[in-house]
């Protein structure tokens, strides 16, 4: 069960403020898409349109070719999990899980119970009495166990400690292998989550900045590591994203494709060429856009 998401010239305005500006993109079915952007970039606005929480001001949002807004067949295929304010939620966690199973056609209660154990979620406690991390774990349990063909996690890990986040990432990969679906993961923790992504979308100030398969990002730049003086000379004319030095060894992230000649030159100088990190690319692209 997986679906493709299409956005066609989508604009979203809040009175005079333009949260999304003419965004067109296709999120391929069965892939894990990373949606990256700085605070206020428009990530949540974009996701809320996909989940039919609101209508775009202009343009169309569709799933498998059919418009999403007020389309019951499409809406039930989309699970949008976000950092929900639970301070007024007095129901027990198990009640909210049962509610999701009532509405979600592909909900797997057995899997939900497995996840409850993995996260050690106290399901008999009222949700507003749970810690922030446990509230996030509850959201993740509902999102994963719903097995919606389009599953969206918008900063769903907030408040989770490192081991819990690790469980979350592992469960995404494991379940994607067994029950493939279209995941959209919106995050700030780029370096921690980049290994999950098949495809990366970067937005900044409501505009689409990058929309590429993760593998092709390697061609967008490179890391050059070696003797500090050689690295310095080799990258002098290049666009530097980041640099680190330890003793006489230096590592510089550069933006732009390295041609075969340059690679051979680096090899001759004894420099190591590696892939560019998504985090550095993200910082560079969003700073450049600003």
């Amino acid at each position: 069960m997986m679906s493709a998401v299409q956005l066609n010239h989508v604009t979203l305005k809040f009175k005079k403020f333009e949260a999304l500006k003419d965004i067109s993109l296709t999120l391929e079915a069965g892939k894990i898409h990373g949606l990256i952007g700085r605070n206020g970039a428009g990530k949540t606005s974009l996701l809320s349109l996909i989940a039919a929480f609101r209508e775009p001001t202009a343009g169309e949002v569709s799933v498998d070719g059919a418009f999403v807004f007020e389309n019951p067949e499409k809406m039930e295929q989309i699970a949008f999990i976000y950092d929900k304010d639970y301070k007024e939620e007095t129901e027990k966690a198990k009640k909210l899980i049962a509610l999701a199973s009532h509405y979600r056609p592909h909900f797997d209660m057995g899997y939900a119970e497995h996840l409850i154990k993995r996260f050690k979620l106290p399901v008999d406690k009222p949700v507003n009495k749970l810690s922030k991390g446990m509230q996030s774990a509850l959201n993740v349990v509902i999102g994963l166990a719903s097995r919606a063909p389009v599953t969206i996690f918008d900063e769903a890990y907030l408040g989770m400690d490192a081991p819990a986040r690790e469980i979350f990432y592992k469960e995404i990969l494991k379940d994607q292998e067994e029950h493939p679906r279209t995941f959209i993961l919106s995050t700030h923790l780029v370096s921690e989550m980049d290994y999950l992504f098949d495809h990366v979308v970067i937005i900044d100030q409501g505009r689409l900045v990058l929309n590429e398969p993760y593998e092709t990002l390697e061609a967008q730049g490179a890391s050059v590591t070696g003797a500090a003086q050689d690295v310095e000379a080799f990258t002098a004319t290049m666009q530097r994203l980041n640099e680190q030095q330890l003793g006489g060894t230096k590592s510089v992230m550069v933006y732009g494709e390295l041609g075969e000649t340059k690679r051979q030159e680096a090899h001759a100088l004894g420099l190591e060429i590696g892939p560019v990190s998504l985090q550095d690319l993200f910082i560079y692209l969003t700073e450049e856009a600003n």
Partner: protein
Amino acid sequence: MTSTRSMKVATAVFKEMIRWSLWFFSILLAIHLIRVFWLNGGPAPIEGFFTFSQYSTSIFTLVLGIMTAYTFMGRHIQQGVSRRDSFFGISLAATGFALFLTVVPLAINGLQHLLAKASIFPVALDTAVVFESTAGAAAAAIGLFLNVLTYFFAGWLISIGYYRFRWIAGFGFIALSFIVFGLNDYLWKPGNYTLDWLPYEPFEMDFWLTVLGSVAMLLVLFLAMRLLTKRVPIKM
């Protein structure tokens, strides 16, 4: 008109409302029994449970209506239910619940009527006359059912006003709900109506005309709520 998804919503919302009403009826019945056994104020007969609970029942459904936009609607959309299915589901649940809120006080009242014959109460209970402007349990039941449903929709109107248009416009929706209450009183409580700008022509001469007026008002409320919820953005 109702899809499987609407029925799913209706079932879940109805169960939730019943759960809340168990608390409500338990407390109301306890207060009523205290009044019957200890605070009965002498030998004069006091009202049976049906008459006693009418006003509270209407206020209870008003509160449920006010909670509707915030409690149910966002939850439904988040679970992949369309606004249309959520609306029809909630409306169906509210209708079923209004029926439940009518039948329960009527049943308790009937039970009191039987027990009163066995003289187990320290004071006489007026359980036979259950609604002042009409005669008979059926008419009283229809009256309560329509009142309760009207109060629910009035509450829902207030909540969607606040949910969709925020505070200042929300006050406007409170004012609208007062017009609804006024018209409702005009129809159902002759002599106690609050709209002094309308000529008073008592309807009790024709009970069914009152029912027709009440149903027409409910239809207007129903259509207004559908329009107000049709494309509402969901709060996060």
